[in-house]
């Protein structure tokens, strides 16, 4: 066990939280945002259909999926930057389960 400096630990938490907030805002805008102004978006067309309908039927879901994949990739990168080794995490997690 090694002590982590407070500034470093806080930086880790801040980086992760910032990402969560950004992705949730994006998710909110493409779903609730588009619905709230559906009448406005209906003047545009995308793939043969009006934009509000496209966003509801495909666009929002596509962006949700991209957010989750991007989050998983970026989080792994942050973990590596802060010296987290996934193999050790798995071991810690497994030994914790046996204790309980």
């Amino acid at each position, binding site marked *: 066990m090694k002590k982590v400096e407070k500034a470093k630990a806080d930086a880790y*938490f801040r980086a992760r939280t910032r990402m969560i907030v950004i992705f949730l805002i994006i998710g909110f805008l493409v779903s609730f945002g588009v619905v709230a102004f559906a009448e406005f978006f209906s003047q545009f067309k995308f793939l043969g259909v009006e934009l509000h309908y496209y966003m509801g039927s495909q666009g929002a*879901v596509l962006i949700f999926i991209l957010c989750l994949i991007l989050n998983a990739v970026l989080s792994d990168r942050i973990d590596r930057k802060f010296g987290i080794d996934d193999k050790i995490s798995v071991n810690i997690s497994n030994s914790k389960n046996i204790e309980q």
Partner: protein
Amino acid sequence: MDAQMFMSLGLIVATFALYIGISIFNRAKATSDFYVAARGVPPFWNGMAIGGDWMSAASYIGMAGTVMVMGYDGLAYIMGWTGGYLLLTFLLAPQLRKYGRYTVPEFIGDRYVNNTARLIAAIATLIISFTYIIGQLSGSGVVIGRILNIPAMYGTMIGVVVIAIYATLGGMKSVTWTQVAQYIILIIAYIIPIVFMSLQVTGNPIPWVTYGSVVDEIGAIDRELGLTEYFAPFQESDKSQFIALMFTLMVGAASLPHVIVRFFTVSTMKAARWSGAWALLFIGLLYFSAPAYAAFSRFILMTRVAGQPIDQLPAWTENWLNIGLLEIADQDGDGVLDWTEINANPDMVVMATPEIADLGIFVIGLMAAGAMAAALSTAGGLLVTISSSFAHDIYYRLINPEASDQKRLKAGRIVMILATIVAGVVALDPPGVITQIVAWAFALAGGTFFPVLVLGVWWRRMNSAGAIAGMLVGLGSTLGYIFLSLSGVTVFGIVDTGAGLFGVPLNFLACIVVSLMTAPPAQHIQDEVTDLRYPEQMTYKDGEVWINDGSGN
């Protein structure tokens, strides 16, 4: 027995044999196997299992039909049910995984160190899963009823027997791998018909890019008939109801105990994040396809069925008229069936369309097998959750802490069978269409659990009094609003399926106000919550963070 019945039954029996084979091969031997599959499921496969667990009769049978009938307003289901995975993967899954418990009531009981909270959570889990399973059973009734050409009610009875036998065979470990198999079967069965329909209607086999123009054409036919366009927003419901429904489904999706428990089956926080991403990708495949399904069905009904002489309707109409899900009447007496004279129940659309489009007996049979896979995989996950919240959280943690593994497994299996039978009796006369029943389960889940779980992992100051108050206020106000709106009292045009918009904020408010008015939780509990900010390798202790570099403690 005609060729179609033979084919459908044959495919269902063959897929069943596969699921039961997998169950027996992976039979649960220990408690941790039964509930969380010994926490060794890789994220990719866990994502697929979440997909199978998640996509129920409501997604498979109900959703495309709902979009077909409601047009744009039905898309609240698509965005709500997928958006929930953002909330779940960002706000809850990794933190809950690090906390490391078996079930949702167990997390609540241990985080708030309070057995009253544990009991309320366990009872709420039972209510939510029970409501959800009614939707599954009534879905299997539609499928079995159609295949055997009997009223949906008898179909439901047969479905109850099948599901009860099936679910008691294994636990979470066998459920994980059968859910993977069920996902694969249901997604293939769902996509094949829309590829053929796309080819029939547009000449291009890629439905996801072609159906936009079909939606546009449907709008043109609507205009000709003097109806509002299919894709026009807020025709079937108010904007406020759309937003309320979408909110309810999102928040509910993030707090369903039988979905959350799937995130306890992976090894780490990182694996939980990847599970969420894979899960939404697999789920998205079906959700991308449902609006396409809806558009093709509506187009085929409008152009090939509507406008026919009423005495020369195709053979398939009779089957659905017999089951009671289709109503037609020549209201204006001109001998021609007009579009406005067709009253199709949303629950028949997915099952009927391959017949209407004449896709051949194999595809129709495959649809039936896929629908059964969807109903069974979700029912399987729900029954494990019902049994664990009774056997583990109520029986073992509160009534008999000395109970052996065998005794707990036995108690769990008894509760599973009881729940299936009682839900089956309710499903004989379903209180709503499938998507609506399922939306109630989401409203209850979000209204009861979402604030208590989110604040539980993010806010140190949250205590047991707040959790109890929050769950009771949330559950009570959500149930209350569902019953009020069913009896005709609504606020801002929001109906029963949007009840979460009231339950969730009230729950948050109760949690925060009551927590601040009462004493903060013990220091070690607060430290445990701070610890959830960091990955497994970092530990928060007495205001300091330590990293385990693998050199041992």
